[in-house]
């Protein structure tokens, strides 16, 4: 395992509130807030891409970590909304960061991509030294593609989060992770090129509300940690109501689940790292990351103050 060195983020400037989103979707602003807890989200400019946002978040994470791009051994970029079939954004991120010595790999996974990439980074860091994990999403393009599903489109926003993982030092040690995949549900949440996001919301919530708490329980049980002793849960910001349901099942107050979804909406795989970059309540004691998304893919990771 390895250490966390620092987080970073990038959010586009343009704020889209529920009045504007409601007008675009034919939905009441109050309905959007009640169903999701979202008040605003960010939409990227036309000239901003998954890679450009990933670079901005990566630069922020490197600066906050005191690590130079030239020190990186590996760059992992997760995204479910990349503009191309290939190459994915990772190689462009490597070039634009100025890290020609680093291997760059894509993790083409929405929502849970950052968690899976962090798990990979924890395994790779002992081999390559320093790993930059970036998750970037430009969800505004697919969700605003016709025909729009208003219950889905209202949720999403754009942004990027990043994390530097280090073999040798950091403020928290990556202790353990528990990941899962259920490919039988691959069609329940998907994004085909040129199509809007398709989401069977009932299936997604039903599975997320059970699988994430189960993964957290397995992980904490294995480490001998009680949920009440976790300092904070930094989870993929899918929906405020889902966070509350998962907190209830885990057996902790929802205030233990950091949330910024009211401001940014669901930024898919970027959300967990954006949340981590904003968390300023300390890292002493166990901290749990968790995510659920298309695939279905889900899991949890525990880190502990170093």
């Amino acid at each position, binding site marked *: 395992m390895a250490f966390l060195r620092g987080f970073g983020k990038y959010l586009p400037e343009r704020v889209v509130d529920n009045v504007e989103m409601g007008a675009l979707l034919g939905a009441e602003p109050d309905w959007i807030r009640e169903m999701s807890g979202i008040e605003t989200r960010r939409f990227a400019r036309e000239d901003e891409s998954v890679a450009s946002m990933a670079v901005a978040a990566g630069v922020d994470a490197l600066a906050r970590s005191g690590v130079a791009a030239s020190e990186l051994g590996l760059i992992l970029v997760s995204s479910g909304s990349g503009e191309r079939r290939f190459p994915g954004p990772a190689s462009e991120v490597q070039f634009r960061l100025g890290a020609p010595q680093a291997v760059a790999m894509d993790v083409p996974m929405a929502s849970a991509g950052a968690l899976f990439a962090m798990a990979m980074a924890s395994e790779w860091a002992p081999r390559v030294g320093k790993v930059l994990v970036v998750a970037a999403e430009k969800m505004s393009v697919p969700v605003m593609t016709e025909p729009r599903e208003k219950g889905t489109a209202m949720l999403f926003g754009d942004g990027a989060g990043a994390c530097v993982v280090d073999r040798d030092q950091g403020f928290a040690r990556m202790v353990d992770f528990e990941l899962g995949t259920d490919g*039988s549900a691959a069609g329940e949440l998907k994004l085909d090129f040129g199509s809007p996001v398709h989401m069977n919301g009932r*299936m997604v*919530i039903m599975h997320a509300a059970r699988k994430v708490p189960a993964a957290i329980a397995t992980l904490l049980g294995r480490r001998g940690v009680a949920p009440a002793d976790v300092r904070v849960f930094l989870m993929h910001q899918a929906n405020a109501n889902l966070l509350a*349901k998962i907190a209830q099942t885990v057996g902790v107050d929802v205030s233990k689940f950091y949330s910024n979804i009211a401001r940014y909406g669901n930024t898919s795989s970027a959300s967990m790292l954006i949340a981590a970059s904003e968390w300023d309540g300390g890292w002493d004691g166990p901290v749990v990351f968790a995510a659920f998304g298309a695939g279905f893919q889900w899991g949890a990771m525990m880190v502990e103050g170093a």
Partner: protein
Amino acid sequence: MKQKRITEILSEIAGKPINIGTDESLFDSGLLDSFGLTDLITKLEKEYDISVPDGDLNPRKFDTIDRITEYVEART
């Protein structure tokens, strides 16, 4: 007997009486939403000491009182 108790559980989750036919959709009637469905399955597992496997986590299996009753009866 089970159907009566299942209807009571549904009423607890919905927070109101269940006044629809046993073959009518609980979702379309607005009595059950995604989160209520999660609560329903948890309560069914406790009430009847059953375990709903991941493969059965499909809203269609729990869309009506008849389907819920059939599901529970087949496992108890």
